[in-house]
């Protein structure tokens, strides 16, 4: 009986949160203007997503996040392999990478605005920059930490340097590469949403949240926040599933 309930355990937290929300709404602890009922919020979300303005902004944010992640992965993965292949080369650029990885990407907005103007490119460029550093460092570490025994095993069987790199080291680095991709896409989403709020934006989830707040349309604002949350969760899940498929040996 207790075991039979186990699959529903994750739902309990959701039900609990909604119950608390209703309680807060009905008891008027919070000003109803600031906290609409869950019903109103989900209605706003449904209306917005079913062909409304929210779905348009949602797609825009997805586009920007996906493009910036693709640019980041496309540049950082080859560079990470290159840097990781030589421990000494990586050590010589490690500080620079760590420094900019630790720099809040939002601090780079003004610079990128100067470079790319106020259009779409800036948002994508900043997000790609932030994500690329995260991916780069993970790929390089994945390559550097390739199991020595495995490399030796391939070499002893007669594999050339290129065969060791493509047949062993690259595959060895894949679990860590996926960690980088997952963190990278999360960071890209954060940067894109922030960028959509401020830099002369006309669309995107960040813009939707900001605009709804300015118009004091709270159900719409909460709806956009939840949409952004769902997007972040969904992207993470997507990469987890992809990882389980492409890197089936990860953690085993």
């Amino acid at each position, binding site marked *: 009986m207790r075991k039979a309930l186990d699959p529903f355990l994750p739902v309990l937290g959701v039900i609990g949160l909604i119950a608390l929300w209703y309680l807060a709404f009905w008891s008027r602890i919070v000003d109803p203007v600031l906290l609409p009922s869950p019903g109103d919020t989900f209605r706003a979300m449904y209306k917005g997503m079913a062909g409304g303005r929210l779905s348009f902004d949602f797609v825009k944010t997805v586009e920007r996040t996906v493009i910036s992640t693709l640019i980041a992965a496309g540049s950082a993965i080859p560079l990470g392999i290159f840097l990781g292949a030589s421990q000494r080369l990586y050590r010589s650029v490690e500080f620079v990478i760590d420094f900019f990885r630790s720099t809040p990407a939002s601090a780079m907005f003004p610079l990128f605005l100067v470079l790319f103007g106020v259009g779409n490119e800036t948002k994508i460029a900043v997000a790609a920059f932030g994500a690329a550093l995260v991916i780069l460092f993970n790929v390089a570490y994945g390559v550097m930490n390739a*199991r020595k*025994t*495995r490399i*030796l*095993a*391939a*070499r*002893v*069987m*007669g*594999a050339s340097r290129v*065969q060791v790199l493509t047949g*062993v080291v690259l*595959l060895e680095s*894949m679990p860590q590469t996926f960690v980088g991709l997952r963190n990278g896409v999360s960071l890209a989403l954060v940067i894109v949403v922030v960028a959509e709020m401020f830099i002369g934006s006309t669309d995107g989830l960040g813009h939707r949240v900001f605009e709804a707040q300015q118009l004091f349309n709270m159900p719409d604002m909460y709806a956009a926040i939840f949409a952004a949350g769902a997007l972040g969760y969904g992207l993470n899940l997507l990469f987890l599933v992809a990882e389980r498929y492409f*890197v*089936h*040996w990860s953690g*085993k």
Partner: protein
Amino acid sequence: MADGAVRTRLATEGVPSSAPSAAPTAPHVTVRGLTKRFGNASIYERFDLDIPRGKLISVFGPNGCGKSTLINIIAGLIPADAGEILFDGKPLRAIRFGYVFQNYREALFPWLRSIDNIEYPLKLMKQPKAERRARVEKLVAHLGVKIDLKRYPYEMSGGQQQLISIMRALVVEPEILFLDEPFSALDYEMTLFMREQLQRIFMETGTTTMLVSHDLEEAVYLADRILLLSRGPAQIADDVPFHAARPRADATLSEPDFITTKAHCLDVFQREVRRG
């Protein structure tokens, strides 16, 4: 000293030689003047060794005497500082050989199914797919292996994984097989099982085999010769023949020949440990 090392010593005190050794044939592997240093520590200093053909040689000695280093140098995993190692007069790159690591988890490729792991060295030799499959099937039939090779290594037990490693080393039909403490990561039950597997493989193929072991019972049980090393720079403390008929079984362990041979090896080992 070098001369003494080259000769196979027979009938050492207390060890009866059950059969006079066969007419001396040309050694399979000749090591001459091997020198290896790690920093200031001299591991091998003008070391000579002959390895006979078609025999199983166990290498045994105190910790840090360079047992693994010896087969790693012979198998080309570590470069020697000086010296010459020839296989029938040829260098390593001209022969086919197999090497089995102690750490099977890290030596197998987890992204490849077991069968593809075994085929990997054949792929490096650019053999076509059909031929590779045929070679593996032949090996499986030869060894009587009953494992589902479609599975990934991480889905298998430790013993099965090490068996896959050994098959990967054997599939190229090596002229010589190196094993570096192949069973020391396995539990006792699996170790006993794998000893029998290795003995069967050796009897089936007759491949010259060099086994590094840290378990004296295992070293003697499997060996035609037990090479006892002294501490650095390593010398051959003794080179003990063991002629019990194959297949050997649990009963072998209680035969007088086994007991005296093992006792003698232990004596030599203790002497070397104390000297170190």
